[in-house]
């Protein structure tokens, strides 16, 4: 019974997913005209193949999920991702964890404190405001 349902359901699901992703892929293309867009030309110049373009579309979905996981208001997520360029979206999708985020706090270890105090005085760092 379950198998039977799956057999009918999976092609439908595949079709729905494919159809659902098509408008997204088509969205950045020219608004209601058949001219070649500037963005298409720049992508072609960078010899960006179909594979990269599909990656760029998927990257945006991926970033949306990651932003929600990082505690961003779901109502804001779509607009935040839409404002990114393709390269930025790909960067966010691939390495959000490694991207530096201004501003975090320094680990309050005493050894670290002393080292940073010295480097501050040497003019290499700027952690403590009183060292100027």
């Amino acid at each position, binding site marked *: 019974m379950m198998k039977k349902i799956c057999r009918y359901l999976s092609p439908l699901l595949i079709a729905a997913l494919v159809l659902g992703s098509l408008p997204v892929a088509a969205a*950045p293309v*020219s*608004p209601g*005209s*058949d*001219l*070649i*867009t*500037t*963005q298409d*030309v*720049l992508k*072609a110049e960078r010899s960006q193949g179909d594979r990269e373009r599909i990656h760029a579309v998927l990257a945006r979905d991926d970033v949306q999920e990651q*932003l929600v*996981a*990082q*505690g*961003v*208001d779901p109502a*804001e997520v779509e*607009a*935040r991702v*839409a*404002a*990114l*360029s*393709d390269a*930025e*979206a790909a*960067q*966010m999708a691939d390495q*959000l964890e490694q*991207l*530096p*985020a*201004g*501003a*975090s*706090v*320094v*680990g309050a270890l005493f050894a*670290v404190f002393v*080292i*940073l105090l010295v*480097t501050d005085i*040497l*003019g*290499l*760092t*700027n*952690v403590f*405001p009183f060292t100027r």
Partner: protein
Amino acid sequence: MMACLERHRISAALQNARLAGVLALALMMLVMAGCASTPRLAESTQRHLPQQTLLEDVPFHGQRDYQCGPASLAMVLNASGVPVTVDTLIPQVFLPGRDGSVQPEMLGTVRRQGRIPFRIDGTLDALLTEIDAGHPVVVMQNLSLPAWPVWHYAVAIGFDRDEKTLTLHSGMEPARLESFKRFDATWARSDRWAFIALPPGELPATGDGQDALDTIADFERAQGAQASLPAWEALVERHPRLAMGHFALGNARHAVGDADGALNAFADAVQAAPDLAVAWLNLGLLHRERGDTGEARVAFERAAALPGPWQDRAQEALADLIRQIG
């Protein structure tokens, strides 16, 4: 005797260790001091820059918690005429899971606010030149060492070449003075990442036409042709020989319904670069759209003769047109 020898050996080893330690420390100091020499300006920059500049009109917003990202954005956006508050920007750029804001989203948020985020070269020359042109610069710094990073955004608003200091709106401190040396050491740890936020129609004082073109194309993707039109106009005025600039202007004009203007821009594009196949192709498509089949055919023939990614498309269009004319 044995003990003496033993003692002698220990004291020798101790002495060696002390010597090695002193040497290592001295070496470390040298290396560190070597890393952080005061950066020098290029001759050409020195000639055209004034000794001091301060952009007094850039408002200051003190950061709360870890929100130097939204605060820095509010300062440069306000300075470029967008009356947005830090509280509006926090949900647009702050990442609660990271207690901070990441670089791509800093740029994206500028686009959402209708301004174009131009990355600038990571040199003191470019930084000071932009400040002198009246553009406050958002810089990313690592205030600490790479092993324990303290990432920070600040806004550079002025400099004093005699004192070798930079003026920054930073954290809780308006118009803070930092020596070029200390600033450059902390800026270098972000690979000297910096950008300016300009209204469409204004261009950075540094950088080349191709960089500006890519940046405006990214803005257009997010905000559409209408908002980008002044930026394209400014780009072709500044770089009249950049054929892709004319091409982009043609597309933007066409998208807002200015067909005559678009035709002119595409014609300028093929004049600047007669081998830009895609400009001939769009010129032909536009002529065909207006029912001007003779002109369309000439343009398609030029495009179809040029090898490249658009050749198939052009040959197809040419064949269609010939079939249509009969």
